[in-house]
């Protein structure tokens, strides 16, 4: 089970259990992510307005996931850097690299701002922020079991579903292990902020090596557990205890996301219609 009370174990750490998104079935949550991701792929570098719409929807979804504010700060820090970098690569260029059809809005030596550059950078930034918030929405609203059941609903082979569930599970455990190993090293008096590059590298291996060994040990246990239970990996059709079905609420929730996908396809292939 996902866990009782007000918290449950998500893909990374513990998350609120009684949120709005938790009432949706697993395939619905996966579909929301996939529909918006597909929509953003269709309109990227084609229609900025629809991309902005997807970004706004992604932010709303993210707010429903009720993740810690730290995640928002991380997103803006990481993607702010990338946005700045993209802007630099499109504007700090030799004059001979300016596309012939671009209109120069501002120039100073090799710093040349064109309309083409601004639009491209806006597309890149919107795409990255939308997808980052969507990914965080998925993290904040799903558990490993949701992933397995969601993939099973779409008739993905059971083994593949189990594989994805175990990957997320192990990755989540690795983050916990990382904290455990790091705290163990700190309790031995190791200061990660001080020392030369070589010393920092040694400290890094002091965390990395136990982490990998722990992962391998867990994997070896899992092999034994699967084998001892006679779990067949190949060529076996399995039934499931939990049958996942879509309910009226799921269809109602999915409708606007299908609409966004359709608008995106129209924007790409029939731009005159939008």
């Amino acid at each position, binding site marked *: 089970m996902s866990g009782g009370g007000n918290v449950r174990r998500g893909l990374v750490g513990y998350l609120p259990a009684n949120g709005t998104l938790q009432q949706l079935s697993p395939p619905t949550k996966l579909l929301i992510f996939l529909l918006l*991701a597909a929509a953003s792929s269709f309109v990227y570098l084609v229609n900025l307005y629809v991309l902005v719409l997807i970004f706004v929807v992604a932010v709303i979804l993210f707010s429903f996931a009720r993740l810690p504010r730290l995640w928002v700060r991380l997103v803006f820090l990481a993607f702010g850097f990338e946005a700045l*970098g993209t802007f630099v*690569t499109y504007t700090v260029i030799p004059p001979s690299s300016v596309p012939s059809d671009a209109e120069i809005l501002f120039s100073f030596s090799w710093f040349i701002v064109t309309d083409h550059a601004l639009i491209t950078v806006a597309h890149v930034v919107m795409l990255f922020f939308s997808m980052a918030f969507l*990914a*965080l929405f998925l993290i904040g609203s799903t558990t490993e079991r949701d992933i397995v059941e969601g993939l099973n609903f779409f008739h993905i082979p059971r083994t593949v579903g189990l594989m994805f569930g*175990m990957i997320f599970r192990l990755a989540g455990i690795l983050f916990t292990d990382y904290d455990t190993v790091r705290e163990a090293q700190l309790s031995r008096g190791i200061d990660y902020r001080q020392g030369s590059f070589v010393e920092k590298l040694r400290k890094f291996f002091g965390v990395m090596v136990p982490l990998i060994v722990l992962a*391998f040990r867990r994997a*070896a246990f899992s092999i034994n557990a699967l084998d001892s239970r006679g779990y067949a*990996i190949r060529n076996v059709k399995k039934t499931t205890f939990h049958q996942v079905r879509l309910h009226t609420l799921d269809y109602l929730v999915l409708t606007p996301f299908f609409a966004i996908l359709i608008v995106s396809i129209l924007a790409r292939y029939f731009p005159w219609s939008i």
Partner: protein
Amino acid sequence: MSQTTKGAMFGTAQFMMIVVSAALALVGTLIGGLSITPIIPYLATLYVGVAFQLIFGDWFGFWGAIGVYIGCGIGELYLGFTPLFAFILVVVDFVQTMLFAFGGKTIKYNYTLKTAKDWIFHIIWNGPIVNGIGGIYATLVFIYVFKFIGPAYFWPFFLGWVAGNVVVVLIIGTILLKFLSTYVMKTPLYARGYFR
């Protein structure tokens, strides 16, 4: 009979090889993503993932490459890529892992790097050659398919990609390979068949 003893056929051991390599590649990709700086965008200053590609290629062969493809693909989703873009980009991670594995299979070098031949192969093949091939693909994809980077930045991006990866492979990858290979070979996870 246990499914773990069937060599290259897909059993629980191969299943777990994919799971472990994908989980660690996912963590490596996320750590790498957090070390991106605006100096050259999309290039991590310490992309630990490539060190994992090396060890999983050598230890798990084909199954490690599949795991790396899945793990890096999921990781790129968290880093702002659409599923389509993520799975186009991580072809480079799959190819690099396969090249690490294939090189190890062809030369049959010792993972614990005992002889001069082992070191020479490791430094030349696992360093600039594999990462150079991967760098060409990644640069072309970033500039001409995704258009995340202006075309004027082909060489800085390519050289930054290769240099960053070579440093990680030759420092982190070497140490992981040298000191963990003996342990891994004793576990049921070590690949038999499909490149080793």
